[in-house]
């Protein structure tokens, strides 16, 4: 029972029927605040839950009770909602009209014609309460005529027709509803009936001998019993009095199957003529109702006093019924398996799966790109450019003379076709490099495909890209980016200058060596690893990770990390004689190569994967969000108070 709820009184309290709302129990405000906060948090987490692949809770019992029952009512005027529910063509609309005392909904011979609920409000209530928030999921629509209930509205647009009682006889806090069927071929009717069931306190179950044990009917009322709704059973279309003896057996089956303990049981004889005239005779069966108070319900036919059932409803202890319904609703919400906790478990376990998926992606989706050897003069030219202002005039003159002589020799060699021009060599390099990048992209796609095969989660997230994505556009994008990349970018020149400046500050002696003894070293083919940077530095080889400038490059790619492992080799490698210089040269070459493979990283990030990596990251960390802990805390606190 909820905190501080008053002891349930077996007799009507002084507050009922109608009049001022009952005094709210102590602690009720705090309880209401918890419910409000819980609803807010769950609503905030729901989109994330959907993204995680957790089944949508909106169709579940606990969600229906929390949002359809508890939230609308904890902070509002305590009204009692009674709804007439049952299968198709069992006479719900007729009974509603009889209860209200005037036709508000059309009763027709055809089945499943009531498409939207019709609510009869006590006079003056419409101005006091917000009908939309009392019946979540429905769009309120003021009553214009009895045929309103037949209109319904398209799926997804659930109308609720309401009207204030014109006679003024309806108890001030009682709302009566006619609902669509729970077993017909139009499934949206089921949904609407379920929404009404969640929102109401009392169900008037209209059963017939054909339908009292139908699975769809049973399931509907069993859910109501689980939420501790109060139920009044009306057996309609009874062959009276021949079947009077049968009703006990039917009711036993119904209550055993659904767990319902009816407040009252009535029988309505089958009388087509009277039904056509909008009349219904009701016989009370007090011996069958567990919650029925002798004397309260008149025995014998009450057809002449058609509002009597409504009066009976008005005579019930509203607060007791209401608290019982709210208590029941809360039980459903707090159920550790089928309640909100169960949903949160699924939420966390799904986040855990995403974490595993993220790890798998980081391990699997990593591709080694075998780039062609960098045209070494590109890097060396940059070094020379940096050195130029630092060299002596003599040095420069000698160097100039050598360069001229070398240039002449090269010119001749080119003319006779022995040596390709620099332009041609760059074109060759570019073509080979593009092929390597394309092959890496192909590898990447294969690896992603493999990862998707191993993880259902990844398949959900990336399968669409791999299957539906325009791969030709990916390759075209890579080609475009590669074509637009200058062979030496300004960014790289800046990087080289920065690196060399730093180096010269730290090793002034060595720079002197460079100035005198710099020779051309050959650089081996660099191997670049492009990976999805979810595992952090593990993907980045040591050489690259230590390069300050490169980390800028790495960050540029967002989630896609480019690491470079370049090795130096060759006869002229200064590293052999000057150990300190080797890492510098390595970094310079690595930086250049990393920039080249950056285009692949960009294509992967911008075109192939889009924002999916961010999304995977978001999902993998979903369970760690403070809202989740807060929901857990609230559920725990509510549960503790409850027990």
């Amino acid at each position: 029972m909820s905190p501080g709820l008053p002891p349930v009184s077996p007799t009507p309290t002084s507050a009922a029927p109608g009049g001022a709302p009952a005094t709210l129990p102590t602690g009720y405000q705090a309880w209401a605040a918890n419910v409000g906060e819980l609803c807010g948090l769950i609503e905030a987490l729901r989109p994330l839950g959907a993204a995680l692949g957790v089944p949508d809770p909106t169709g579940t019992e606990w969600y229906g009770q929390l949002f359809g029952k508890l939230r609308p009512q904890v902070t509002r005027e305590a009204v009692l909602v009674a709804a007439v529910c049952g299968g198709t063509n069992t006479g719900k609309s007729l009974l509603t009209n009889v209860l209200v005392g005037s036709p508000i909904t059309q009763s027709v011979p055809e089945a499943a014609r009531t498409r939207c609920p019709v609510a009869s409000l006590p006079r003056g209530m419409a101005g006091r309460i917000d009908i939309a928030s009392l019946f979540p999921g429905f769009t309120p629509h003021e009553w214009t005529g009895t045929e309103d209930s037949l209109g319904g509205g398209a799926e997804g647009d659930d109308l609720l027709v309401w009207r204030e009682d014109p006679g003024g006889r309806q108890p001030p806090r009682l709302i009566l509803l006619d609902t669509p069927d729970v077993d017909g071929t139009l499934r949206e009717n089921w949904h609407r009936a379920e929404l009404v069931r969640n929102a109401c306190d009392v169900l008037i179950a209209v059963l017939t001998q054909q339908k009292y044990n139908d699975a769809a009917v049973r399931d509907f009322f069993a859910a109501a019993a689980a939420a501790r709704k109060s139920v009044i059973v009306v057996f309609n279309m009874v062959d009276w009095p021949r079947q009077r003896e049968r009703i006990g057996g039917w009711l036993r089956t119904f209550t055993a199957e659904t767990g319902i303990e009816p407040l009252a049981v009535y029988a309505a004889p089958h009388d087509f003529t009277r039904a056509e005239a909008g009349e219904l005779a009701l016989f009370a069966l007090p011996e069958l109702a567990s919650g029925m108070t002798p004397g309260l319900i008149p025995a014998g036919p009450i057809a002449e006093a058609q509002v009597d059932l409504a009066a009976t409803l008005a005579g019930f202890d509203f607060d007791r019924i209401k608290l019982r319904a709210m208590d029941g609703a809360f039980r459903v919400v707090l159920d550790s398996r089928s309640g909100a906790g169960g949903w949160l478990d699924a939420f966390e376990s799904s986040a855990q799966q995403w974490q595993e998926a993220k790890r798998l992606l980081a391990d699997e989706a990593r591709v080694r790109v075998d780039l062609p050897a960098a045209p070494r003069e590109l890097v060396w030219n940059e070094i020379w450019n940096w050195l130029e202002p630092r060299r002596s005039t003599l040095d420069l003159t000698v160097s100039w003379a050598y360069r001229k002589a070398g240039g002449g020799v090269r010119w001749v060699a080119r003319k006779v076709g022995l040596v390709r021009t620099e332009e041609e060599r760059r074109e060759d390099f570019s073509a080979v490099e593009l092929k390597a990048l394309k092959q890496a992209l192909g590898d990447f796609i294969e690896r992603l495909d493999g990862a998707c095969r191993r993880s259902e989660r990844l398949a959900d997230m990336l399968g669409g890209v791999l299957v539906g994505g325009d791969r030709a556009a990916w390759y075209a994008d890579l080609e475009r980016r590669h074509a637009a990349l200058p062979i030496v970018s300004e960014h790289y020149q800046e990087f080289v200058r920065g690196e060399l400046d730093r180096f010269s500050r730290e090793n002034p002696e060595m720079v002197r060596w460079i100035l005198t003894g710099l020779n051309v070293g050959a650089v081996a083919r660099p191997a670049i690893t492009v990976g999805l940077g979810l595992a952090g530095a593990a993907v980045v080889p040591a050489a690259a990770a230590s390069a300050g400038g490169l980390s800028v490059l790495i960050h540029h790619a967002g989630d896609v990390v480019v690491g470079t492992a370049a090795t130096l080799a060759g006869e002229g490698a200064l590293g052999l004689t000057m150990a300190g210089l080797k890492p510098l040269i390595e970094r310079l070459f690595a930086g250049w190569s990393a920039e080249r493979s950056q285009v692949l990283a960009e294509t992967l990030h911008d075109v192939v994967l889009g924002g999916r990596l961010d999304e995977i990251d978001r999902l993998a960390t979903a369970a760690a969000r403070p809202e989740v802990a807060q929901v857990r805390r609230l559920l725990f606190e509510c549960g503790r108070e409850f027990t």
Partner: protein
Amino acid sequence: MAHSPPSPSASSAPAPKPSSSLNPSLPQAPSSAASGAADDLSPALFDDSRFDELVLRLSRWSGALPDWPPARRTSAEWEQIAPRLERARRELSRVLVVGVIGGTGTGKSTLVNALAGRDVSPAGDVARPTTTTPVVVVARDVDCAWLPLEATGARVVRSDSPAVANIVLVDCPDPDTQSGQPAAEQGASGSPSGSRASDTNRNRDLLEAVLPACDVLLLLATAQKYRSWSVAQEVAAFAPGRPLLFVQSHASRDPDIRDDWRRELEAQGFLVPRIYRVDGLEAARRAQAGLEPEPGFAELVRAIDEELVGRAARRVRRTGALDLAEWFVGQSRQQLAGLREPVEALAAGLRQERLRLEGLLAKAVEERLRASRPAWQRMITDELVDRWHGGPFAMFLHTLSAIGAFWPRLRAGRGGVISQVLAGGAAAPVTSAHAAWQSVEEIGLGEADVEQSRSILVGLAARARLGEPLVGRARLSESQVQTTVGTLLERTGSWLVAGIDRLVVDRRSRVDAPVVRMVCESLFSGLLVAVLVRAGWNFFHGHLWLGKPVEGLGFLEEALVWLILWGLLLRWLVFARLRRGIDRDIQSLLARLPQAGLVDPLLADFASAAEKTANFLDEGERLAAAAAGLAAATGEITGNLGRLRGGSP
């Protein structure tokens, strides 16, 4: 409403026994009904050979692409349909099995009792559900051992009532009291758990085990149940190929809801020629009292007699079979409809990638051929020289050619296909994947290019739900490389050889005319003769006659030089004509490249898969048209029986 095929529980029902052992005991249609006219059904009503052909084509079609998942699904559904069609064909004359179905409390058992003329099935309002085991009502002299209902625990009851004399009537359990979702609608929320009487209720399972044995469904509904969702689900699952009789019961209590029910049924896809309206209780009472049946019931009995007995039974079974075939092909088409676009996209992608690869190939071949101009020219000259014999100029050309042979031939490259071809050899077979890629690089197709195309196509194929083994992966395996790239090299080699040969022959024929030869020989011989005459004149006239001293070797040397120069000039003139327009030749050679299908081996799996799937979809369309045509030719022959319309959306 989506119609699902018979549920798994239906398919797990015992299979019908072989007909050979059954036929002798099969109750045949009464001779009065079948006599004389039994086989006079006009071909227009039902053309057996056309139907057989349709079934054969459906069978072939459904199993045609076992490796394609959508086709596999079609095939699995066919496996369920085929035995029914086969049975319908084999057992045309057998009496019909009529299953009475409907929600609990609609009066199924009451109606069965009325038709049987006595209480054969428990009926009433004491408890729901009333019928928990099927009850089979048959005439006294009918052996119904062939009915595959052992597993359902069905009870067989004999009846002498004329209403069931020529049919087998089955009182089925209801579909709406068992909890949980029907097989057709698994996955939605279940019912609350707990130990309840309904937990042991298996009525719907039983119903799904009984219905496969039924040929006709008698659907019973009341004002409360004619819009029941659970009943509609079961009927939709079992109605394909089973004509129906629609009956509203509780006629004396309920209003007439037939118009509204008809609208509901039509919305579900049924053809509803007629709905009967009976009061089962009254009918049963009258039947037991031996009184005249009430009019509604009498109409129903008459309908059974007219629509389901004798010749009509054959008609019903044939119509059912045809409906089933049409429904199957319609359903399959619906399922496959979404694949048409991806399959076409794959074919379009294939064309595009083929063009791209051919473009790369053409570009590289063109560059190579242009760069190999000397080798190309040498081929042409060699070809011409080989054909010119006799005469001093020919001797001169041969001499030059022989001298040229001493020189190392200027090769186009280092052993590539084009070089080999231009050098007059054939492409060497590849021995490893690496070697294959190296050889293929020369003709412009790198591993990366091929992989790019294949990766794009793998994506497109996946959209069409095509995967291994129908199509391969983006990266070719070692063995695949050897075969596909090997084939590519071989084809390219032979295509180049053929193309170049043709061009060389064509070019040679331009100058290889007798006139040209005669002119060349005359011009060359003219100088030779002039030199010889000059030398003879000098010797005979000048030296011997006039006694002048013989002119020295100087003249001969000079003459030889002039002769060689003259010969070379003539040769240059002849070959200039040959050499002019080699670029044009290369262009014309490359223009024929797309027809050669050189890159096809690299994408052969995709081409084959695209073709097979497109054919599969096309055949599906043709079969749907054939089934619809056959149905149209057969016409509406079921009188007052309802049918589920063919699956064509």
